[in-house]
Protein backbone atom coordinates (compact mmCIF):
# COMPACT_ATOMS: atom_id res chain seq x y z
CA UNK A 1 0.00 0.00 0.00
CA UNK A 2 2.67 2.46 1.15
CA UNK A 3 4.97 1.18 -1.59
CA UNK A 4 2.24 1.74 -4.18
CA UNK A 5 1.63 5.25 -2.85
CA UNK A 6 5.32 6.07 -3.09
CA UNK A 7 5.66 4.76 -6.61
CA UNK A 8 2.51 6.67 -7.65
CA UNK A 9 3.97 9.79 -6.12
CA UNK A 10 7.21 9.21 -8.00
CA UNK A 11 5.48 8.48 -11.30
CA UNK A 12 3.19 11.52 -11.15
CA UNK A 13 5.46 14.20 -9.77
CA UNK A 14 9.12 13.23 -9.76
CA UNK A 15 9.63 11.28 -12.98
CA UNK A 16 10.54 13.50 -15.95
CA UNK A 17 10.27 16.52 -13.59
CA UNK A 18 6.51 16.40 -13.88
CA UNK A 19 6.07 18.61 -10.80
CA UNK A 20 7.15 21.47 -13.03
CA UNK A 21 3.81 21.26 -14.85
CA UNK A 22 2.18 22.14 -11.52
CA UNK A 23 4.59 24.91 -10.46
CA UNK A 24 4.59 26.53 -13.90
CA UNK A 25 0.82 26.19 -14.02
CA UNK A 26 0.49 27.72 -10.57
CA UNK A 27 2.54 30.68 -11.70
CA UNK A 28 0.24 31.22 -14.70
CA UNK A 29 -2.89 30.84 -12.54
CA UNK A 30 -1.60 33.43 -10.06
CA UNK A 31 -0.56 35.90 -12.77
CA UNK A 32 -3.87 35.59 -14.59
CA UNK A 33 -5.90 35.91 -11.38
CA UNK A 34 -3.94 38.90 -10.09
CA UNK A 35 -4.04 40.95 -13.26
CA UNK A 36 -7.62 39.97 -14.12
CA UNK A 37 -8.65 41.07 -10.62
CA UNK A 38 -6.88 44.41 -11.09
CA UNK A 39 -8.46 44.93 -14.49
CA UNK A 40 -11.81 43.95 -12.99
CA UNK A 41 -11.41 46.54 -10.21
CA UNK A 42 -10.82 49.33 -12.72
CA UNK A 43 -13.63 48.23 -15.05
CA UNK A 44 -16.02 47.47 -12.21
CA UNK A 45 -15.35 50.73 -10.42
CA UNK A 46 -15.94 52.72 -13.58
CA UNK A 47 -19.17 50.90 -14.41
CA UNK A 48 -20.44 51.22 -10.84
CA UNK A 49 -19.80 54.97 -10.81
CA UNK A 50 -21.60 55.41 -14.15
CA UNK A 51 -24.54 53.31 -13.02
CA UNK A 52 -25.03 55.00 -9.66
CA UNK A 53 -24.50 58.46 -11.08
CA UNK A 54 -27.24 57.76 -13.58
CA UNK A 55 -29.49 56.39 -10.85
CA UNK A 56 -28.89 59.34 -8.55
CA UNK A 57 -28.78 62.25 -10.96
CA UNK A 58 -30.22 61.03 -14.25
CA UNK A 59 -27.06 62.01 -16.13
CA UNK A 60 -24.82 59.78 -18.34
CA UNK A 61 -27.82 57.98 -19.86
CA UNK A 62 -26.01 56.66 -22.94
CA UNK A 63 -22.97 55.49 -21.01
CA UNK A 64 -25.31 53.83 -18.54
CA UNK A 65 -27.03 51.95 -21.34
CA UNK A 66 -23.67 50.71 -22.61
CA UNK A 67 -22.73 49.58 -19.10
CA UNK A 68 -26.05 47.78 -18.75
CA UNK A 69 -25.45 45.96 -22.01
CA UNK A 70 -21.97 44.95 -20.82
CA UNK A 71 -23.35 43.59 -17.55
CA UNK A 72 -26.13 41.70 -19.28
CA UNK A 73 -23.89 40.06 -21.86
CA UNK A 74 -21.04 39.19 -19.51
CA UNK A 75 -23.19 37.93 -16.67
CA UNK A 76 -25.47 36.10 -19.06
CA UNK A 77 -22.83 33.93 -20.75
CA UNK A 78 -20.38 31.36 -19.35
CA UNK A 79 -16.82 32.57 -18.83
CA UNK A 80 -15.36 29.68 -20.83
CA UNK A 81 -17.42 30.71 -23.86
CA UNK A 82 -16.27 34.32 -23.45
CA UNK A 83 -12.67 33.13 -23.23
CA UNK A 84 -12.94 31.15 -26.45
CA UNK A 85 -14.74 34.01 -28.23
CA UNK A 86 -11.92 36.36 -27.27
CA UNK A 87 -9.24 33.90 -28.37
CA UNK A 88 -10.78 32.42 -31.51
CA UNK A 89 -13.12 35.21 -32.69
CA UNK A 90 -11.93 38.61 -31.49
CA UNK A 91 -8.24 37.83 -31.75
CA UNK A 92 -8.67 35.64 -34.84
CA UNK A 93 -5.67 35.69 -37.18
CA UNK A 94 -3.44 37.28 -34.57
CA UNK A 95 -0.57 35.59 -32.82
CA UNK A 96 -1.29 36.77 -29.33
CA UNK A 97 0.13 35.89 -25.96
CA UNK A 98 -2.26 33.48 -24.29
CA UNK A 99 -1.65 34.72 -20.77
CA UNK A 100 -2.61 38.18 -21.99
CA UNK A 101 -5.75 36.82 -23.68
CA UNK A 102 -6.77 35.06 -20.48
CA UNK A 103 -6.17 38.21 -18.40
CA UNK A 104 -8.37 40.22 -20.78
CA UNK A 105 -11.13 37.59 -20.78
CA UNK A 106 -11.19 37.03 -17.03
CA UNK A 107 -10.72 40.75 -16.35
CA UNK A 108 -13.72 41.68 -18.48
CA UNK A 109 -15.71 38.92 -16.84
CA UNK A 110 -14.76 39.81 -13.30
CA UNK A 111 -15.34 43.51 -14.01
CA UNK A 112 -19.04 42.86 -14.51
CA UNK A 113 -19.39 41.10 -11.17
CA UNK A 114 -17.24 43.63 -9.33
CA UNK A 115 -19.31 46.47 -10.84
CA UNK A 116 -22.43 45.13 -9.21
CA UNK A 117 -20.60 44.66 -5.92
CA UNK A 118 -19.35 48.25 -5.95
CA UNK A 119 -22.79 49.51 -6.91
CA UNK A 120 -24.50 47.61 -4.13
CA UNK A 121 -21.94 49.13 -1.75
CA UNK A 122 -22.74 52.62 -2.97
CA UNK A 123 -26.48 51.93 -2.71
CA UNK A 124 -26.06 50.70 0.86
CA UNK A 125 -24.94 54.14 2.06
CA UNK A 126 -28.06 55.97 3.31
CA UNK A 127 -29.30 58.72 1.04
CA UNK A 128 -29.07 61.19 3.95
CA UNK A 129 -25.26 60.95 3.80
CA UNK A 130 -25.37 62.16 0.26
CA UNK A 131 -27.70 65.04 1.07
CA UNK A 132 -25.53 65.99 4.05
CA UNK A 133 -22.50 66.15 1.77
CA UNK A 134 -24.29 68.36 -0.72
CA UNK A 135 -25.58 70.70 2.03
CA UNK A 136 -22.01 71.08 3.30
CA UNK A 137 -21.19 72.58 -0.08
CA UNK A 138 -19.51 69.53 -1.68
CA UNK A 139 -20.34 68.99 -5.31
CA UNK A 140 -21.42 65.58 -6.62
CA UNK A 141 -17.92 64.28 -7.26
CA UNK A 142 -16.58 65.49 -3.93
CA UNK A 143 -19.50 63.95 -2.04
CA UNK A 144 -18.87 60.66 -3.82
CA UNK A 145 -15.15 60.71 -3.15
CA UNK A 146 -15.07 61.92 0.47
CA UNK A 147 -18.34 60.72 1.96
CA UNK A 148 -19.94 57.90 0.00
CA UNK A 149 -16.93 55.87 -1.20
CA UNK A 150 -15.19 55.34 2.15
CA UNK A 151 -18.41 53.96 3.59
CA UNK A 152 -19.31 51.98 0.49
CA UNK A 153 -15.94 50.27 0.16
CA UNK A 154 -16.10 48.96 3.71
CA UNK A 155 -19.35 47.22 2.87
CA UNK A 156 -17.90 45.83 -0.36
CA UNK A 157 -14.71 44.26 0.94
CA UNK A 158 -16.01 40.84 2.05
CA UNK A 159 -18.10 40.36 -1.09
CA UNK A 160 -15.25 41.57 -3.26
CA UNK A 161 -12.88 39.04 -1.76
CA UNK A 162 -15.41 36.33 -2.43
CA UNK A 163 -15.35 37.45 -6.05
CA UNK A 164 -11.55 37.09 -6.11
CA UNK A 165 -11.81 33.58 -4.72
CA UNK A 166 -14.35 32.73 -7.41
CA UNK A 167 -12.10 34.32 -10.03
CA UNK A 168 -9.12 32.26 -8.88
CA UNK A 169 -11.09 29.07 -9.34
CA UNK A 170 -12.70 30.19 -12.59
CA UNK A 171 -9.31 30.58 -14.24
CA UNK A 172 -9.18 26.77 -14.24
CA UNK A 173 -10.92 26.81 -17.63
CA UNK A 174 -7.92 28.57 -19.21
CA UNK A 175 -6.85 25.19 -20.62
CA UNK A 176 -9.52 25.63 -23.28
CA UNK A 177 -7.22 28.01 -25.12
CA UNK A 178 -4.20 25.76 -24.52
CA UNK A 179 -2.92 28.01 -21.76
CA UNK A 180 -1.08 25.87 -19.26
CA UNK A 181 -2.54 26.96 -15.94
CA UNK A 182 -2.62 24.84 -12.79
CA UNK A 183 -5.57 22.70 -13.88
CA UNK A 184 -4.13 22.13 -17.34
CA UNK A 185 -0.79 21.25 -15.70
CA UNK A 186 -2.57 18.52 -13.75
CA UNK A 187 -4.32 17.40 -16.93
CA UNK A 188 -1.01 17.10 -18.76
CA UNK A 189 0.40 14.93 -15.97
CA UNK A 190 -2.80 12.88 -16.09
CA UNK A 191 -2.42 12.41 -19.83
CA UNK A 192 1.14 11.16 -19.30
CA UNK A 193 0.67 8.84 -16.33
CA UNK A 194 -2.96 7.80 -16.85
CA UNK A 195 -3.58 8.00 -13.14
CA UNK A 196 -6.42 10.22 -12.09
CA UNK A 197 -5.96 10.35 -8.33
CA UNK A 198 -2.57 11.98 -7.76
CA UNK A 199 -2.66 14.86 -10.26
CA UNK A 200 -6.28 15.79 -9.57
CA UNK A 201 -5.93 15.66 -5.79
CA UNK A 202 -2.70 17.65 -5.95
CA UNK A 203 -4.34 20.32 -8.09
CA UNK A 204 -7.37 20.43 -5.79
CA UNK A 205 -5.13 20.78 -2.72
CA UNK A 206 -3.17 23.65 -4.24
CA UNK A 207 -6.39 25.54 -5.06
CA UNK A 208 -7.72 24.80 -1.58
CA UNK A 209 -4.58 26.13 0.09
CA UNK A 210 -4.70 29.31 -2.00
CA UNK A 211 -8.36 29.85 -1.15
CA UNK A 212 -7.71 29.18 2.54
CA UNK A 213 -4.95 31.78 2.60
CA UNK A 214 -7.20 34.29 0.82
CA UNK A 215 -10.09 33.60 3.19
CA UNK A 216 -7.82 34.06 6.19
CA UNK A 217 -6.61 37.41 4.81
CA UNK A 218 -10.19 38.49 4.24
CA UNK A 219 -11.25 37.70 7.79
CA UNK A 220 -8.25 39.66 9.13
CA UNK A 221 -9.18 42.58 6.91
CA UNK A 222 -12.82 42.39 7.97
CA UNK A 223 -11.86 42.50 11.63
CA UNK A 224 -9.62 45.46 10.95
CA UNK A 225 -12.41 47.29 9.12
CA UNK A 226 -14.99 46.48 11.79
CA UNK A 227 -12.84 48.24 14.39
CA UNK A 228 -13.62 51.61 12.82
CA UNK A 229 -17.38 51.24 13.05
CA UNK A 230 -17.61 50.67 16.80
Amino acid sequence: MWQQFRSDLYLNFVKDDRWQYLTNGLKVTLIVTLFAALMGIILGFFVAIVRSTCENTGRLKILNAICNLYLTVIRGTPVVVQLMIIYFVIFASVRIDKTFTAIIAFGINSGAYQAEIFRSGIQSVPRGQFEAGRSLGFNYAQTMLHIIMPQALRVCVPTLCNEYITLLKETSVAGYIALEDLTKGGDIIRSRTYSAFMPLIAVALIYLIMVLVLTRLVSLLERRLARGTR
Partner: protein
Amino acid sequence: MKKLISVALVLAMSLSLAACGSSGNPEGTATKGVLVMATNAEFPPYEYHDGDSIVGIDAEIAEAIAKKMGCELRIEDIAFDSIIPEVSSGKADIGLAGMTVTEDRKQSVDFSESYATSSQVVIVPENSGISSLSDLGADSIVGVQTGTTGDIYCSDDDSIGTVERYNKGMEAVQALTQGKIDAVVIDSEPAKVFVSENPGLMVLKENYTNEEYAAAIRKGNTVLLDNVNKALEELKADGTLDKIVAKYIAAE
Protein backbone atom coordinates in the same frame (compact mmCIF):
# COMPACT_ATOMS: atom_id res chain seq x y z
CA MET B 1 -31.88 -3.85 15.36
CA LYS B 2 -28.11 -3.48 15.39
CA LYS B 3 -27.79 -7.01 14.14
CA LEU B 4 -30.19 -6.32 11.32
CA ILE B 5 -28.16 -3.29 10.24
CA SER B 6 -24.91 -5.21 10.30
CA VAL B 7 -26.45 -8.01 8.28
CA ALA B 8 -27.72 -5.47 5.79
CA LEU B 9 -24.29 -3.86 5.62
CA VAL B 10 -22.55 -7.19 5.05
CA LEU B 11 -25.06 -8.01 2.33
CA ALA B 12 -24.59 -4.64 0.67
CA MET B 13 -20.83 -5.01 0.78
CA SER B 14 -20.79 -8.49 -0.65
CA LEU B 15 -23.18 -7.39 -3.38
CA SER B 16 -21.06 -4.42 -4.31
CA LEU B 17 -17.97 -6.65 -4.32
CA ALA B 18 -19.76 -9.06 -6.61
CA ALA B 19 -20.47 -6.20 -8.99
CA CYS B 20 -16.77 -5.41 -9.19
CA GLY B 21 -15.60 -8.90 -10.09
CA SER B 22 -15.96 -9.51 -13.76
CA SER B 23 -14.83 -13.11 -13.49
CA GLY B 24 -18.35 -14.41 -12.95
CA ASN B 25 -19.39 -13.04 -16.31
CA PRO B 26 -18.57 -15.18 -19.37
CA GLU B 27 -17.94 -12.20 -21.66
CA GLY B 28 -15.60 -10.53 -19.18
CA THR B 29 -17.57 -7.28 -19.28
CA ALA B 30 -18.65 -5.45 -16.15
CA THR B 31 -22.35 -5.81 -16.95
CA LYS B 32 -23.59 -9.02 -18.50
CA GLY B 33 -24.47 -8.65 -22.16
CA VAL B 34 -23.25 -5.07 -22.43
CA LEU B 35 -19.90 -3.95 -23.81
CA VAL B 36 -19.15 -0.38 -22.69
CA MET B 37 -16.70 1.39 -24.94
CA ALA B 38 -15.00 4.63 -23.94
CA THR B 39 -13.92 6.95 -26.71
CA ASN B 40 -13.41 10.60 -27.57
CA ALA B 41 -15.73 11.21 -30.49
CA GLU B 42 -13.84 14.13 -31.98
CA PHE B 43 -11.39 12.14 -34.02
CA PRO B 44 -12.68 11.61 -37.55
CA PRO B 45 -12.78 9.21 -39.26
CA TYR B 46 -12.15 6.89 -36.29
CA GLU B 47 -14.95 8.30 -34.18
CA TYR B 48 -17.14 11.34 -34.53
CA HIS B 49 -20.67 12.52 -33.98
CA ASP B 50 -23.04 12.14 -36.89
CA GLY B 51 -26.46 13.41 -35.90
CA ASP B 52 -27.43 11.70 -32.65
CA SER B 53 -25.03 8.79 -32.90
CA ILE B 54 -21.30 8.24 -32.69
CA VAL B 55 -19.95 6.67 -35.86
CA GLY B 56 -16.56 5.91 -37.38
CA ILE B 57 -14.09 3.08 -37.80
CA ASP B 58 -13.66 2.40 -34.07
CA ALA B 59 -17.39 2.55 -33.43
CA GLU B 60 -18.09 0.02 -36.18
CA ILE B 61 -15.25 -2.28 -35.15
CA ALA B 62 -16.51 -2.19 -31.58
CA GLU B 63 -20.01 -2.92 -32.83
CA ALA B 64 -18.67 -5.94 -34.75
CA ILE B 65 -16.68 -7.15 -31.72
CA ALA B 66 -19.74 -6.78 -29.49
CA LYS B 67 -21.82 -8.74 -31.95
CA LYS B 68 -19.27 -11.57 -32.01
CA MET B 69 -19.34 -11.63 -28.22
CA GLY B 70 -23.12 -11.55 -28.14
CA CYS B 71 -23.16 -8.22 -26.34
CA GLU B 72 -24.90 -4.95 -26.85
CA LEU B 73 -22.53 -2.03 -27.46
CA ARG B 74 -22.78 1.15 -25.44
CA ILE B 75 -20.50 4.06 -26.37
CA GLU B 76 -19.36 6.67 -23.86
CA ASP B 77 -17.93 9.90 -25.21
CA ILE B 78 -15.33 11.39 -22.83
CA ALA B 79 -12.10 13.40 -22.99
CA PHE B 80 -9.23 11.49 -24.61
CA ASP B 81 -6.99 11.61 -21.56
CA SER B 82 -9.79 10.19 -19.38
CA ILE B 83 -10.22 7.04 -21.48
CA ILE B 84 -7.47 5.00 -19.83
CA PRO B 85 -8.54 5.93 -16.26
CA GLU B 86 -12.09 5.03 -17.27
CA VAL B 87 -10.97 1.62 -18.51
CA SER B 88 -8.56 0.87 -15.68
CA SER B 89 -11.16 1.81 -13.08
CA GLY B 90 -13.66 -0.53 -14.74
CA LYS B 91 -16.20 2.17 -15.67
CA ALA B 92 -15.75 1.15 -19.30
CA ASP B 93 -14.86 -2.31 -20.61
CA ILE B 94 -12.77 -1.27 -23.57
CA GLY B 95 -11.22 1.92 -24.86
CA LEU B 96 -11.26 2.30 -28.64
CA ALA B 97 -10.15 5.74 -29.65
CA GLY B 98 -7.50 5.49 -32.31
CA MET B 99 -5.21 4.80 -29.38
CA THR B 100 -1.57 4.00 -30.06
CA VAL B 101 0.14 1.27 -28.08
CA THR B 102 2.93 2.83 -25.99
CA GLU B 103 5.06 1.50 -23.15
CA ASP B 104 3.66 4.12 -20.75
CA ARG B 105 0.09 3.19 -21.55
CA LYS B 106 0.89 -0.51 -21.17
CA GLN B 107 1.65 0.17 -17.51
CA SER B 108 -1.97 1.14 -16.92
CA VAL B 109 -3.92 -1.09 -19.30
CA ASP B 110 -3.58 -4.17 -21.48
CA PHE B 111 -3.87 -3.81 -25.23
CA SER B 112 -5.57 -6.10 -27.73
CA GLU B 113 -3.95 -7.08 -31.01
CA SER B 114 -3.63 -4.00 -33.17
CA TYR B 115 -6.49 -3.46 -35.60
CA ALA B 116 -5.09 -0.54 -37.60
CA THR B 117 -1.87 1.26 -38.27
CA SER B 118 -1.43 4.96 -38.33
CA SER B 119 1.15 7.65 -38.29
CA GLN B 120 1.54 11.09 -36.80
CA VAL B 121 1.75 13.69 -39.53
CA VAL B 122 2.45 17.40 -39.62
CA ILE B 123 -0.15 19.86 -40.93
CA VAL B 124 1.16 23.24 -42.08
CA PRO B 125 -0.29 26.15 -44.06
CA GLU B 126 0.32 25.73 -47.82
CA ASN B 127 2.29 28.96 -48.20
CA SER B 128 4.36 28.59 -45.04
CA GLY B 129 7.53 27.49 -46.78
CA ILE B 130 7.81 24.55 -44.39
CA SER B 131 8.43 21.49 -46.52
CA SER B 132 10.02 19.10 -44.06
CA LEU B 133 10.21 18.46 -40.35
CA SER B 134 13.65 20.02 -40.11
CA ASP B 135 12.17 23.36 -41.18
CA LEU B 136 10.38 23.52 -37.84
CA GLY B 137 12.93 25.55 -35.98
CA ALA B 138 13.60 26.09 -32.31
CA ASP B 139 11.23 29.06 -32.23
CA SER B 140 8.33 27.17 -33.83
CA ILE B 141 5.00 26.68 -32.10
CA VAL B 142 3.40 23.29 -32.68
CA GLY B 143 -0.20 22.55 -31.72
CA VAL B 144 -1.28 19.10 -30.52
CA GLN B 145 -4.22 17.47 -28.74
CA THR B 146 -3.50 16.92 -25.04
CA GLY B 147 -2.47 13.37 -24.22
CA THR B 148 -2.28 12.07 -27.78
CA THR B 149 0.92 10.42 -28.98
CA GLY B 150 1.57 13.52 -31.04
CA ASP B 151 1.62 15.49 -27.79
CA ILE B 152 3.91 13.00 -26.05
CA TYR B 153 6.40 12.71 -28.91
CA CYS B 154 6.47 16.46 -29.55
CA SER B 155 6.97 17.24 -25.86
CA ASP B 156 10.07 15.03 -25.88
CA ASP B 157 11.35 16.52 -29.12
CA ASP B 158 13.97 19.17 -28.43
CA SER B 159 13.98 20.43 -32.02
CA ILE B 160 10.46 21.82 -31.56
CA GLY B 161 10.18 25.21 -29.90
CA THR B 162 6.91 25.33 -27.98
CA VAL B 163 4.20 22.69 -27.80
CA GLU B 164 0.69 24.05 -27.31
CA ARG B 165 -1.74 21.48 -25.99
CA TYR B 166 -5.34 21.95 -27.09
CA ASN B 167 -8.28 19.98 -25.71
CA LYS B 168 -9.40 19.05 -29.20
CA GLY B 169 -7.54 18.40 -32.43
CA MET B 170 -10.04 20.67 -34.15
CA GLU B 171 -9.03 23.59 -31.92
CA ALA B 172 -5.36 23.10 -32.73
CA VAL B 173 -6.25 23.15 -36.44
CA GLN B 174 -8.36 26.28 -35.89
CA ALA B 175 -5.41 27.99 -34.21
CA LEU B 176 -3.28 26.95 -37.21
CA THR B 177 -5.69 28.43 -39.75
CA GLN B 178 -5.69 31.66 -37.71
CA GLY B 179 -1.90 31.79 -37.83
CA LYS B 180 -1.54 31.42 -34.06
CA ILE B 181 0.74 28.40 -34.43
CA ASP B 182 3.13 27.10 -37.10
CA ALA B 183 2.10 23.47 -37.39
CA VAL B 184 -0.17 20.77 -35.96
CA VAL B 185 1.01 17.24 -35.26
CA ILE B 186 -1.87 14.76 -35.33
CA ASP B 187 -2.84 11.27 -36.53
CA SER B 188 -2.82 10.86 -40.29
CA GLU B 189 -6.49 10.00 -40.85
CA PRO B 190 -8.03 12.93 -38.96
CA ALA B 191 -5.34 15.08 -40.56
CA LYS B 192 -6.70 14.21 -44.01
CA VAL B 193 -10.20 15.22 -42.93
CA PHE B 194 -8.98 18.47 -41.37
CA VAL B 195 -6.96 19.37 -44.46
CA SER B 196 -9.81 18.58 -46.87
CA GLU B 197 -12.16 20.77 -44.84
CA ASN B 198 -9.77 23.67 -44.36
CA PRO B 199 -8.49 25.05 -47.64
CA GLY B 200 -4.97 26.43 -47.42
CA LEU B 201 -3.63 23.61 -45.26
CA MET B 202 -1.51 20.66 -46.30
CA VAL B 203 0.05 17.54 -44.79
CA LEU B 204 3.83 17.13 -44.99
CA LYS B 205 4.90 14.06 -47.00
CA GLU B 206 7.30 13.01 -44.31
CA ASN B 207 5.54 11.23 -41.39
CA TYR B 208 6.39 12.36 -37.90
CA THR B 209 6.06 8.81 -36.48
CA ASN B 210 4.46 5.47 -37.34
CA GLU B 211 2.35 3.53 -34.88
CA GLU B 212 -0.31 0.89 -34.24
CA TYR B 213 -3.83 1.30 -32.88
CA ALA B 214 -5.30 -1.18 -30.42
CA ALA B 215 -8.14 -1.52 -27.93
CA ALA B 216 -7.37 -0.78 -24.28
CA ILE B 217 -8.66 -3.28 -21.74
CA ARG B 218 -8.43 -3.27 -17.95
CA LYS B 219 -5.20 -4.82 -16.74
CA GLY B 220 -5.62 -8.48 -15.84
CA ASN B 221 -9.02 -8.90 -17.45
CA THR B 222 -7.79 -11.77 -19.60
CA VAL B 223 -11.29 -13.10 -20.27
CA LEU B 224 -12.30 -9.92 -22.06
CA LEU B 225 -8.88 -9.56 -23.70
CA ASP B 226 -9.13 -13.08 -25.14
CA ASN B 227 -12.68 -12.46 -26.31
CA VAL B 228 -11.74 -9.20 -28.03
CA ASN B 229 -8.65 -10.71 -29.64
CA LYS B 230 -10.65 -13.70 -30.86
CA ALA B 231 -13.32 -11.40 -32.32
CA LEU B 232 -10.67 -9.21 -33.97
CA GLU B 233 -9.01 -12.26 -35.49
CA GLU B 234 -12.30 -13.45 -36.95
CA LEU B 235 -13.08 -9.96 -38.25
CA LYS B 236 -9.66 -9.77 -39.88
CA ALA B 237 -10.08 -13.22 -41.44
CA ASP B 238 -13.50 -12.59 -42.95
CA GLY B 239 -12.55 -9.18 -44.30
CA THR B 240 -14.96 -7.17 -42.13
CA LEU B 241 -12.12 -5.10 -40.72
CA ASP B 242 -10.86 -4.08 -44.17
CA LYS B 243 -14.41 -3.33 -45.27
CA ILE B 244 -15.00 -1.00 -42.32
CA VAL B 245 -11.72 0.83 -42.86
CA ALA B 246 -12.35 1.15 -46.59
CA LYS B 247 -15.80 2.57 -45.93
CA TYR B 248 -14.32 5.55 -44.09
CA ILE B 249 -10.92 5.94 -45.68
CA ALA B 250 -10.74 6.45 -49.39
CA ALA B 251 -8.12 4.15 -50.90
CA GLU B 252 -5.05 6.05 -51.90
